């Protein structure tokens, strides 16, 4: 949670204000004393999952720093944020910049500013652990050329693929080079807690607590695009479709890789991510059709309508799905909004094997400890959880919830 106190600057450059420190989660060190940093409003508010890119209101407008939440509107006349050249204390360039003599530049793009913006809220982007690591690593590279070199290096690490990958069904549209990506699903078992995303291990046993995770192969004849593809593959490999769906493409701005986020048929990066999300779903569906997707009795949780927790992504209708992908979505939704100290979701559906005839039954046990419950009575806690889960879990009839606040468990 950020310790920053938001404050507004109303059109007049203010010098010498005391600074607020940034959250330790981001890569910036404490800015020097005579620069002004204008933080965004507190990020503890839940944000739209995944899909805010497509929302035109959420796009920062060129030349104007307009944030979607409406708390702060700055024109570039306000962006007279003086930055010092004594950047020794910085591991990376300061968040906003203008000419060193303090003059106002009338037209500046805000690429770096919005990237820094996004870094502060990186936890709200629902990134996989690998993607988060790479985003922060890229953001810490101060020089644009070096970032490109890092991308090119990643391109060289992508393994060669057979020609059967380079087919039109695998083509990513809208790229300036030819990009192909293919996806397969394997059964995995979740390990680790859901608080930081956890990981997956081999699903050796045949019980119902496995999940479908996906792996990608891909290629491109443009090296930078190939590097981007390598980054995405590394970030998305061995994750579930729900986790992949939740990823907010804004991370690429946080990573300060110069990529436009303007939605459109010609946005190669957005299309790459969209194709990978779609292919993850398809790979799992294929695997379910081929493998033993059904026959699990009461262990099935019926999810109709939106199978993913995100808005503005492709919705796939899945009539039955085994526990895994939706569990991931539940964990993702709750983790993102409540920032729990610990969270655990246990599938007890096998205890309801006899209820196979009732569509949509399943039983799960949710243990969650979070500061968000402080001061709320039991009913309110459960209402909050159900409200957050709304789309994700419309049909779980039996969710046993144990919701504690941090102070209660200590």
């Amino acid at each position: 949670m950020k310790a920053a106190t938001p404050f507004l600057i109303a059109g007049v450059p203010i010098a010498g204000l005391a600074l607020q420190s940034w959250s330790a989660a981001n890569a910036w060190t404490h800015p020097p004393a005579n620069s002004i940093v204008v933080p965004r409003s507190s990020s503890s508010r839940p944000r739209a999952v995944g899909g805010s890119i497509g929302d035109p209101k959420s796009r920062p407008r060129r030349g104007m720093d307009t944030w979607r939440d409406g708390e702060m509107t700055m024109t570039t006349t306000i962006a007279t944020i003086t930055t010092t050249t004594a950047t020794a204390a910085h591991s990376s360039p300061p968040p906003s910049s203008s000419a060193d003599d303090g003059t106002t530049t009338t037209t500046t793009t805000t690429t770096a500013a919005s990237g820094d913006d996004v870094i502060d809220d990186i936890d709200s982007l629902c990134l996989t652990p690998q993607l988060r690591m790479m985003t922060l690593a890229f953001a810490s590279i101060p020089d644009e050329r070096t970032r490109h070199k890092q991308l090119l290096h990643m391109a060289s690490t992508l393994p060669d693929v057979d020609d059967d990958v380079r087919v039109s069904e695998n083509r990513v549209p809208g790229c300036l080079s030819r990009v192909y990506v293919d996806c397969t699903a394997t059964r995995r078992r979740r390990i680790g807690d859901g608080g930081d995303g956890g990981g997956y291990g081999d699903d050796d046993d045949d019980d119902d607590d496995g999940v479908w995770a996906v792996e990608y192969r891909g290629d491109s004849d443009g090296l930078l695009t190939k590097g981007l593809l390598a980054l995405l593959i590394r970030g998305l490999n061995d994750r579930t479709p729900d986790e992949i769906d939740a990823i907010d493409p804004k991370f690429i701005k946080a990573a300060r890789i110069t990529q436009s986020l303007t939605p459109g048929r010609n946005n190669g990066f957005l299309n790459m991510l969209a194709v990978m999300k779609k292919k993850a779903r398809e790979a799992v569906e294929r695997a379910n059709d081929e493998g033993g997707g059904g026959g699990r009795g009461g262990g099935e949780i019926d999810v109709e309508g939106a199978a993913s927790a995100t808005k503005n992504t492709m919705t796939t209708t899945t009539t039955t799905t085994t526990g895994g992908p939706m569990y991931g979505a539940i964990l993702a939704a709750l983790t993102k909004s409540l920032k729990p100290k610990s969270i655990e979701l246990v599938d007890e559906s096998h205890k309801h094997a006899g209820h196979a005839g009732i569509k949509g039954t399943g039983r799960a046990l949710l243990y969650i400890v979070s500061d968000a419950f402080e001061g709320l009575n039991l009913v309110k806690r459960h209402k909050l959880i159900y409200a957050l889960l709304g789309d994700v879990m419309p049909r779980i009839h039996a969710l046993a919830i144990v919701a504690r606040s941090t102070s209660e468990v200590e």
Partner: protein
Amino acid sequence: MSLPLPLLSRSSSSSYRYCYPPPPPPSSSSSSSTVPPTSSLSDDDGNDDYPPPSSSSSSSSWWKDYKFNDPHLAHSVIGDFPILSTRFDADGKMTSSSSSSSSLVDDERDAGGGGGTGGGKADRRLIYLDSAATSHKPSVVTDALISYYETMNSNVHRGAHALSRESTEAYECARDKVASFVNARDRNEVIFTSGATEAINLVATSLSCREGGGREYRLIGEGDEILITEAEHHSNIVPWQMAASRTGATLRYVPASSVSDGFDVSALMGGLVNDRTKLVSIQHVSNVLGTINPIGDIVDYVRDNASPDVLILLDACQSVPHMKVDVRALGVDFVVASGHKMCGPTGIGFLWGREDVLNGMAPYKGGGEMIDEVYMDGSTYARSPARFEAGTPPIAQAIGLGAAIDYINGIGIDRIHEYEIELGDYLRRRLEDVEGVTVLGPRVGVERAALCSFVSDVVHPSDLGTFLDLEGVAIRSGHHCCQPLHRALGHSHSARASLYFYNTKEDVDDFVSALEGTLGFFRSLTSGTTVDGEDGNIVAETNDDDPFVPLF
């Protein structure tokens, strides 16, 4: 009302060709550059080998002292274009000052350009080499737009009040300017559209429309043939595909190849034109290859061999902004062009057509302005140009286009053309010297527009575009809306540098320097060797010296 016709002072040859051989790279001992080439034009065996320079070692720096015949044109106009003063700081942020007196600064600046890709320059200027996609606008054009909105904004043709009179007069005056610019017979032959794409769609839709009412319209019907080429821009392909599909006509095309530097004129004249050919649509100048097509010869051939009522449409998007286009001399039936490629605003272009042809065509869009009388059971239509200008026209944009034409006429389209011949030839020759780069289109010494598309064996065009962008160089990479042409040439994508009269020799030099640096860098990725570029810049590092360490 007829307009006073400008006297033609040029020969009325159907396609404008420059008649003198372009100046060759001078030997290093001479400082002027007017020695005619001995080998370039006589080497006419049609293959892609370029004639070797007279002395390979001494001409490697021929370009440094090269002098243009008209070296001041670009520098004298740069100040008129505020956007050309755009600069990029170390973080890649763009800044552009409202006052733009930086043109002379560039003269004195070290022309070393971007050098290698080791570290970036702290402050880079914009080197805009994408005018074929869209041109920049001088202040007089943006002033005209503002002036319209602030002083005479009013709907045209409909009001009797003072503002409406002003705006109508300005709008129709712009039409006169366009008509004069292309040497039309009459102002009624000029139809304002939203651009060349709409102009082509206008013709295609109108000729394939099945409007009832028993009126006699020129139409393409089943069994007729439409002829285009494989080298066309998509805007000159897709509307015809739609028209053919609507009407049952057959769409045929002249194949393209690298050997013919575009579409194969001999194939065109080898049987693709017959008495069922009703519509021929070709480009004047290729936006990929720079090839200037022999329109006069093609028109003559088509008139002789096609159906007697064949219509010929010329896509002049890449010619009107750069050279004199005389619609009467060319002998075509339609000419389309876009305003935004000729210093005009976006959202405006025009269709020129023969007046009798236009008045015999079905309307395109229906609505206000294009009618004569409207009854609930039918309407009668106005004559051209109103016939094809339904609704409120793009008034401000047309006036802006008029201002752009005035601006170009103030410099002189012929002066612009002469300068671009030199500059384009200079670009072509400089690119010829860059190792690992293959320029598409006509070889050195052959007439072409001032643009060069190229491919590299070392780096993909999209990567090239990105890395050049880091140096402040704006080129275009992709298929340039000519997918069939690229397929015919055997490349999926290419990079393109295109010039306009505000580009300088330094722009070309800086571009080539940055290009060499980027190529060297990408070479070092694969081979790890050091390559020295021009001016002693290190353009690539060995793996030992490269401080780059991958983070993961």
